[in-house]
């Protein structure tokens, strides 16, 4: 058990050294949230019809934009794995005695660390726009946990897709097709209650919905969770464990 986490830690630590070395990547990631909050959000604040539960629309959508940037960066994680496969790094990892699940978890944790950087960026943008944020340590810890767990889910989902399609071209196609629908079929920029029934059903099964719900509660002053944090974290944790189990089974297939 200890060995399992040490192995995951080794993978995550190696990824962390890469993140530290490439700050340009972090900068380019700030662009999307700035556009959504600075332009889309400014305009849509004038629409008074969207029920936001007593907070401004801009404040309402801020957690949605953080969740979106977590989703968009984690969902392309599979590309990096396909790249590593084409090089031979995956083969080398799989010949080591490390547990396959530990290797997958290590990759997911690394995606989580990247997600935390996204969170810092969105906090900065939101603060600049004068959005009322919760700055208590306990709230920020919840945000960090949610962002980590969300990144783990989406990056592992991405890894599963990579294990199935195995080539970059096919992966890019699927990645593009998945991201926008996942974003729109969630509570990121409008609440579930104004969705048509069919969309609501999809949104209930969309993990992004639960991440947004956590963030809306823990990030925004006056924001409230619709499902309750235990439900949100429970759904996300179970989903992640299931994905981890599937990915650990599929990952060795990449070496064939």
């Amino acid at each position, binding site marked *: 058990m200890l060995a399992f986490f040490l*192995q995951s830690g*080794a993978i995550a630590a190696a990824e962390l050294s890469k993140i530290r070395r490439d700050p340009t990547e972090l900068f380019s990631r700030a662009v999307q949230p700035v556009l959504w909050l600075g332009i889309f959000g400014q305009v849509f604040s004038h629409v008074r019809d969207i029920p936001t539960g007593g907070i401004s629309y801009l404040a309402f959508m801020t957690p949605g934009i953080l969740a979106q940037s977590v989703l968009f960066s984690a969902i392309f994680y599979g590309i990096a794995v396909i790249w590593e496969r084409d090089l*031979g790094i995956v*083969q080398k990892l799989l010949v080591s*005695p490390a547990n396959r699940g530990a290797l997958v978890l290590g990759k997911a944790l690394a995606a989580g660390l990247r997600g935390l950087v996204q969170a810092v960026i969105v906090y900065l943008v939101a603060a600049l726009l004068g959005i009322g944020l919760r700055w208590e340590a306990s709230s920020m810890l919840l945000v960090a946990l949610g962002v980590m767990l969300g990144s783990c889910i989406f990056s592992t989902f991405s890894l599963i897709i990579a294990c199935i399609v195995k080539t970059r071209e096919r992966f890019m196609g699927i990645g593009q097709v998945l991201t926008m629908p996942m974003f729109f079929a969630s509570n990121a920029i409008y609440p579930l209650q104004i969705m048509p029934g069919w969309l609501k059903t999809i949104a209930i099964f969309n993990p992004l919905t639960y991440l947004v719900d956590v963030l809306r509660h823990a990030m925004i002053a006056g924001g409230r969770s619709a499902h309750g944090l235990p439900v949100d974290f429970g759904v996300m944790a179970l989903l992640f464990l299931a994905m981890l189990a599937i990915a650990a089974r599929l990952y060795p297939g990449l*070496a064939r």
Partner: protein
Amino acid sequence: MPPAIETIALTRRFNGFTAVDGISLTVAPGQIFGLLGPNGAGKSTTIKMLTTLLTPTSGTARVADHDVVEAPVEVRRAIGYVPQMLSADGSLTAAENLLLSARLYGVPPRVRGARIAEAIAFSGLEEFAGKLVKTYSGGMIRRLELAQAMLHHPAVLFLDEPTIGLDPVARRAVWERLQALRRDYGMTILLTTHDMEEADVLCDELAILLEGRIAARGNPQQLKADTGPEATLDDVFVAVSGGTMQESGNYHDVRQQRTTLRRLG
């Protein structure tokens, strides 16, 4: 002492195509064993089965006295592997690559520092250990990959085309290190190659694979003597493979290489 590698009727099929067709071979501890053959002969598939990356369709294989199907984790603990492709991470330094390997192989923290220092000295990369691997030359990367594969002192080392694409100096540097690993650590080494000089200089024992089967087997001297007086390994290869290589691009290469060697006298 049990053999370092032993396969019995090892077979692998892919959708009806038989890549490895009933290979039985034994490699004694401390040997450098070469698998030769044109592209598509089944060399890489054999290595993948021996390193547990691929499950055999039938037959058995034991590596370091563990069955590759029944005890894959024990096999992985006992082996090192250098894939044909580039397997060191270019976005990390040599030291970081080695640290990752040490952690994944569970090298205890007490000896980790010493092992990494030993591996860096082995690879001759002392001055470059803190530099990103993507700035290295092909030969330096190969030496680092060797260092990563020997870090945990495996009993058996597998290398897939270890010197492909390297210049003669870099190639020689790899050979010297492989010989050092056998001499200093008693490692058994199995490598694939289609470089005849490499096979001749380095290997104690060879098996020539053709279409998934062992077409010839023996030590280089014996194989050459069996083919004819003054025969080179290239001659052996051509004699063994006969006209069956039309599907491989390597027939041309072998012929060209042979002509060059003749000219050089």
